[in-house]
């Protein structure tokens, strides 16, 4: 397996306000990494750093061996909101991204491709709908379809299902896993931000638990539960319960009391 993402000793501050300190994460091609942590611990910031939207103050981020110098089409990003351009229809949002990624192809091919991608998230009928005419769950499916459409090796998702109800959320988790596991998507590496322990265990191959003040890694868990994982069967497995208990412990332990000493890496 190739090293896809190597984050070494990463630190970042917003105007002198330390947000992330000494973060080390290594992900291999095809890993599904969930970043789990309390609100304000710097999950979004970490993702923005990987996306190239912010510059590290110390340490480095390598993607495929090369240092990140800014945003790029080798990384598809899905934000919690604002991912789609509201003045473009769902289809045009995909076409716009496709034009950016493959400027040499003809527009007709982009339109066809966009239709096919929307079909993969069961939204072929939404091609001509504006984002404001779609439900929140549909919008996020379009955003995910757009991220997959340009076929980037690395996907960055910042709480893409955070604003959705439980049922829609469960559907979208399945959609996402289906896309990730398809032959064309199997090699994709995913960084997925969440503060939901169950979501992390259901999706991830690796869960990185972050603590706050400043944001740092408190634990890394390999989720060695067989796929396909179903919400029902997984919850009775002893391995799941053990992982869950360990993560919940880390999450609810008052992280600012933990101080500098003994941060697990």
């Amino acid at each position, binding site marked *: 397996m190739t090293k896809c993402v190597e984050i070494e000793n990463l630190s970042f501050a917003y105007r002198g306000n330390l947000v992330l300190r000494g973060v080390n994460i290594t992900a291999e091609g095809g890993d599904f990494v969930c970043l789990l942590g309390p609100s304000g611990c710097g999950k979004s910031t970490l993702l923005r750093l990987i996306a190239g939207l912010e510059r590290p103050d110390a340490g480095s981020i390598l993607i495929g061996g090369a240092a990140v110098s800014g*945003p790029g089409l080798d*990384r598809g990003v899905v934000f919690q909101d604002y991912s789609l351009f509201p003045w473009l229809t769902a289809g045009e949002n995909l076409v*716009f991204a496709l034009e950016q990624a493959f400027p040499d192809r003809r527009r007709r091919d982009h339109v066809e491709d966009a*239709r096919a991608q929307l079909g*993969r998230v069961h939204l072929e009928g939404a091609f001509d709908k504006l984002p404001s005419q779609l439900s929140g769950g549909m919008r996020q499916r379009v955003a995910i379809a757009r991220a997959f459409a340009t076929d980037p090796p690395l996907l960055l998702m910042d709480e893409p299902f955070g604003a959705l109800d439980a049922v829609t959320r469960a559907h979208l988790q399945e959609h996402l896993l289906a896309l990730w596991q398809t032959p064309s998507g199997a090699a994709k590496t995913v960084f997925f931000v969440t503060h939901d322990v169950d979501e992390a265990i259901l999706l991830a191959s690796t869960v990185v638990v972050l603590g706050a003040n400043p944001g740092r890694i408190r634990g890394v868990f390999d989720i060695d539960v067989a796929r396909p994982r179903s919400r029902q069967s997984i919850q009775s497995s002893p391995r799941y319960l053990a992982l869950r208990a360990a993560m919940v412990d880390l999450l609810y332990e008052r992280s600012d009391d933990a101080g500098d000493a003994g941060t697990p890496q």
Partner: protein
Amino acid sequence: MSSTQIRAGGAHPGTRPAALGPGRGAPAGLHWSQTLPAGAILAGLLLASAWPGSEEGFPLYLVLFAVGVGVVALARWRLAGSDVARQSVCDVAAILYAILLAWQLATAHFAALDPMLFPPPELTLRLFVKELPDLLYCLRSSLILLVSGFGAALALSLPLGLYVGWHTRLHHAVSPFTKILGTIPPVVFIPYIVHVLPSFKSASIVVIFIGAFWPIFINTVAGVFNVPKGLIDSGRVLNLSTRKMLLRVVLPAALPSICTGASLALGFSFLLLTAAEVIGANSGIGWYVHYFSDFADYHRVVVGIIFIGIVVVAITLATERLERHLLRWRS
């Protein structure tokens, strides 16, 4: 259409696309009773017209106009998409008829108003038709000034506003100047510019330009500055060039604010146009009103005012429609 569409099947019942097409059934509130108030006032108006009032005789133009309004209103009432729209068509027609009736009664029948200052509707309509070629000619010269001044302001202030709004440092450097220059009422420039520039035409174009420039510029800059950061991040992760970012993300995102500025600017332009025409023109709709009031020809003044009103309403409706079209993506 693409032949590669993949059918969803029944696997996701909650997420299937809703049925397309308007699917509008029979209009719900299409009751003739809605037209009754307007109809009653129209009947009163026709009755008043038939009544021998003044020496003018039978007011043919008034009757034709009233009936014409009725036909248009009836057509719009039948075709209106919603109950609210239908009701308002009837209400508007009723109010228009009430105004005509009151005007007719006050002038032609009871001579309550000075006929020099307040011509009866029949006379006004007849004069309007007679003056229409002249009025249209005036409108043409006014529109040339308006379109030149406003168009130049739009063409310059929009790209400039985008650029300045996008470059934060430039924005901060320029904002004290825009705050001062933008708040000077453009009317005060008129006498100065009319003297500085060689022709009335160039002077009024420049005055309109100044009046229209600042509202568009200031609103464009503000619009760009207030574009949600998330949208810009979405553009950045697509690796957009600055040019594409400005044209395809920042411009559409700032468009609501730009539209506000542009309609403000258009209102200013019209005001400045008529003000400038009063000062130094020899044609134009503002000039028309001013010219005939100098001759105390108040009948033509009234006709000119009504004409200007119609023009302003038409321009406002057109720009509102354009704005709705441009911003149709806003829910």
